[in-house]
Structure formats: C-alpha cells, structure tokens
C-alpha cells in the first residue's frame, strides 16, 4: 500500500511536471493579452514531431534534439502570432476560440498527412531510462529526469520573471496592460517574446512527453483539455499557480487511474468544474 502510494506520488509528480511545461506558456500569454489560444498544444506537437524526425531520420541523440524541439515550436508560434493572432487581440472570445480550433484541426490533419496516424516513438538513451531502486521500491529513471528537468525550468522561469527587466515588463503587462503601455513599455514586443518562449516550452513538453504518453496526430486535441484545466485552475498569468495546479492534476490523474480505473477521466472533470465554480478566476488568479 505504502509503496504503491509512493509510486503514484512520484509518477504523478513527474506527469505534473510535463503538464506544467505544456501549459505555463499558455497561462502567461492568456494573462497578458486575454487571448484564448486553444492551439497551444499544436505547438507541443510540433516539438514532439521535430524530435521524432531528428532522432529517427537523422540519428540525432535524444538530448541534442530537445533544444531543436524548443526552437522549432518557438518559431512556429511566433510566425502564427505575427500573421494571424495579432489581428484578433481585440476580437471576442468566440472568434479567438474558432480561429485557434481551426488551427488545431489543420495541424492534426497535417501531422496525419506527413507522419501517418500511427504512434511515433523517440526513445531516450538507456542510462536515462534505467530504474532507480530505493529500499524495495523501483522508480522509473526517466520520470526522475522529468522531475529534475521540470524543477530546473521552473526555477529558471521564476528567475527570469522576478529578477530581470524583461520579467518586470511582462509582470506589468499581465497586471494592467494599458497602464504598462502608458509607461512606455513595448507590450507587443514583450508579448511576442513571451509567446515564443511559451510555445517553445510547450514544444519541449511535447518532445519529453513522447516517452510517457506517446505521440500521434490527435495529441493537440487530447492534451488540450488537460492544459486548459491547468490554466483555468491555476489562474491566468501565474507561474506558481500553474505549477501547483499541474502537480495536483498530475497526481490526482495518476491516483484516479491507479485506484479508481472504472471512473476514467470523470473525476478530473468533476474536480475542475467544482473548482471553477468555487473560484472562477482560478486558485491563484487575481482577476
């Protein structure tokens, strides 16, 4: 019982790190521009497929392909932001939803066209996957890597946002966009960089997720709900909130699958609806 609990907590935490990487960019960009970007997980899929291509067709090592996944996803997101998204910052939620859902549909079909609908794999090196034994409990080595990686990225993000000039601009824009503009902050530029960064992180998350959940063209739709839950529950524009929400969601999803498999995803949706009714702006949201 105790060992299963430890496994669930450990795996859930690792899964939560993955969800955090996938969703933190969306949380910050939503907080800044109020833009409902449902295509965020398509950026993650871009990163994932970039890794698959580099590893399987060009023989790159896993760790070397991760930065490329980040760059590819960041590039795609910045191109979309410049060409399509920027026209809709003042439009209604509905228009933003529709545009980005349209992009999701296009991306799903495009991935199916280029990579078929089969599950893709990109195996990390053997030394990363070796299990680690503590007492009589086995921990998957790759999940430990995920946790360390996720914590490192979180620390970097917090440093970037709390300690740098750019971070101060982003925080100002999240708190009050008009005031920030009034003070001479170039919000559009800050937003573009944040958007690229968020898209890149999602791409990184997509690449890291292949080993855990696999990768097929419907990835962008399947993970959309989880990412939105993290963002909505964590509160817009809050890194700490997204982190907490992602960890809680990851652990409760694992626990649900382990202890109540017949409930399926029911529990997750129930918790989300209840939390949103209790605090519509999210657990840590300001608005």
């Amino acid at each position: 019982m105790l060992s299963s609990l430890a496994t669930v907590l450990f795996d859930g935490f690792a899964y939560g790190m993955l969800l955090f990487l996938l969703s933190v960019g969306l949380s910050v960009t939503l907080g800044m521009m109020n833009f409902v970007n449902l295509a965020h997980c398509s950026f993650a899929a871009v990163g994932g497929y970039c890794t698959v291509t580099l590893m399987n067709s060009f023989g790159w090592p896993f760790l070397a392909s991760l930065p490329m996944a980040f760059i590819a996803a960041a590039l795609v997101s910045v191109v979309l932001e410049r060409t399509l998204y920027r026209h809709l910052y003042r439009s209604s939620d509905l228009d933003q939803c529709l545009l980005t859902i349209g992009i999701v549909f296009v991306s799903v079909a495009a991935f199916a066209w280029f990579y078929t609908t089969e599950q893709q794999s990109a195996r990390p090196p053997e030394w990363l996957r070796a299990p680690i034994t503590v007492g009589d409990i086995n921990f998957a080595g790759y999940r430990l890597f995920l946790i360390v990686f996720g914590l490192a990225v979180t620390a970097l993000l917090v440093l970037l946002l709390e300690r740098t000039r750019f971070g101060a601009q982003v925080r100002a824009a999240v708190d009050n966009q008009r005031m920030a503009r009034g003070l001479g902050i170039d919000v559009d530029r800050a937003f573009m960089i944040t958007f690229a960064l968020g898209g890149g992180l999602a791409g990184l998350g997509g690449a890291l997720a292949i080993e855990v959940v696999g990768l097929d063209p419907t990835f962008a739709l399947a993970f959309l709900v989880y990412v939105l839950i993290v963002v909505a529950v964590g509160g817009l524009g809050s890194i700490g909130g997204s982190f907490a929400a992602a960890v809680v969601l990851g652990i409760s999803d694992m626990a649900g699958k382990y202890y109540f498999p017949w409930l399926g995803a029911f529990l997750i949706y129930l918790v989300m609806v209840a939390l949103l009714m209790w605090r519509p702006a999210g657990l840590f949201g300001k608005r």
Partner: protein
Amino acid sequence: MENASGHFRQKVRWHPLEIAFWLCTLLPFVVTPAYLSLASQIAITALFALSLDLILGYAGIVSLGHAAFFGVGAYSAGLLAKHYWGEPLAGLILAAAAAGIVGYAMSHIVVRFRHLALIMLTLGLGLLLHEAANSASDLTGGADGLQGVKVGTLFGFRFDMFGRTAYAYSLAVLFVCFLACRRIIHSPFGLALRGIRENAVRMPAIGAPSLAHLRKAYTIAAVMAGIAGALLTHTTSTVSLETLSFGRSADVLVILILGGAGRLYGGIIGAIIYMVARDQFSGINPQYWYFWIGLLLVLVVMFLPNGILGGISALDKKSQ
C-alpha cells in the same frame, strides 16, 4: 411615429424569400428521392444548430459543450423506445423534458460566468456527461452505443430505408421549432437577450433581470437540442456515444459560424452546406476532412466574421 408593438409586428412579417425557402425544403421529396436520408440528417443538424444559435448568437453564451443536451435527448428517446414504448412522439416529449431539466440545472451554473471560465465550464460539463455515459455501460451500452432501439410507427407510417417518413418527420419538427424560435427572437424577450449580449452590465442597470433571461434562453435551447437528439435516435434507430462527444459540439459550432451566428437562418444554411459537402467528400479520410474544416474556420474568422449570411447581407447593403 412607430410604437413598440408596431416594431415587433413589422419584424414578424414573413419575407417572400423565407416562404420560398421553406417551399424549397419540400423539393427533396420529388427531385432527389435518393437523398432523403441525408435530407433528414440535415434537418436534424439544422435544428441542433438553431438551438445553439439561440444561446450563442442571440444571448452571447459561448458553449463548447452543447452536445450534452443533444446526447441527453438521444439517450432518453432511445431508452424509452428500447424498454417501454416505441411511439416516436412520446419519445420526443420525454427527450425534450429530460434535456430541459438537465439544461435548467446547468443554466444556474453557466450563466454566472464569462470568458475563459465559461468556455471551460461548458466544455467540462459536456465532457463530464460523456464520461458518465461511457462509465454507465449497463444503461447506455457504453462505447458500443445503445443497441436494439425499436422505433414504432408514426401515425401509421413506418420508418423505412428510403427515409421518406424520416425526412417528413424531421422537417415538420424543425419547422415547428423554427416557428417557436422566430417568435421568441422577435419578442421583447428576444430583444432583451440581444441587449444582454451587447452589454451585460447595462441591462441589469435598466431593470432587466438578465440572469433570469439567460437561464430561460439556455433552458429553451437545451430543450430544442434534446428534441434534435431524439430525432436522430428515431430516424437511425441507434444511439452512439458520439452524440455526447466534444466533436459534435465543435461541429455544430462550426456549422453555425459558417452560416452566420445571430441570424435565424444561419444554422440552417450552415447545416445544408456542411452536410452536403461532407456527403460529397465522404470518400476522403475524415482526418483530411478536418483539414478543410479547420482552414475554413480560419478563413471565416479572418475574412467573413458574420458567416455566409452576414457576408451576403453586407454585399446586399453595399449594392443598394
């Protein structure tokens, strides 16, 4: 000077184009009898889109989980026909009642939220129902769908494979619901809904009970979606889990936006175009079908913000 009742009376008058349109809906009986099944599916989809139009186009409630009511209607009609009573009209009434009760219960949650929380809540509630139906496989048949639905005769007419009865039935129900919708939209209540859509803060300030109005509209839309679901059950004699899926919610949204939200005929025009196109391109893989749908969505949002009907009326205004 025009008074209020004069304003409403003038709006209610039928345009010749409208009469022509409804006469045209009778054409499939004589012109394309081979496509009557498709025509009945179009009528059902149009009714579903019309119900979404009421809350999205007129009341401004964005919903990503409207299939919940469609599915509730489909399953309640299916369960009634399977276990107790195969007569379709009774199933229609039961489905409307069941979807109405679920809709009324949900409306208390949904109308209090806006923006992201609203989108997430409608999505979450829809997914919740989908998962519940999937888990309760003893009652609903789970992922295999509800098998063995025996639909009885309607006024002595059987539902045959040519779809003659199916289309007449779907079309009649669509027309009745359309009349109800038309009446609602051109009433002071409909005007109040549009007021809430345009400015949710000012309407309560002038004394309109805006939350009560929204709850009422949401419940009516749920009833109509439930009726559409029951029609699908009766005309196909099966209920699949797909009736509750996110895909169906997204499809109906696409249809409404394509035709033009906030216009009475938007959902109907959208349904005709969407369903005929899907039938024509049924040879291609559904994966790639969604590529074109996605592209269409992007183009409509960027260049045709009010849908096809909005574009036509803008052209019409320009030419005058």
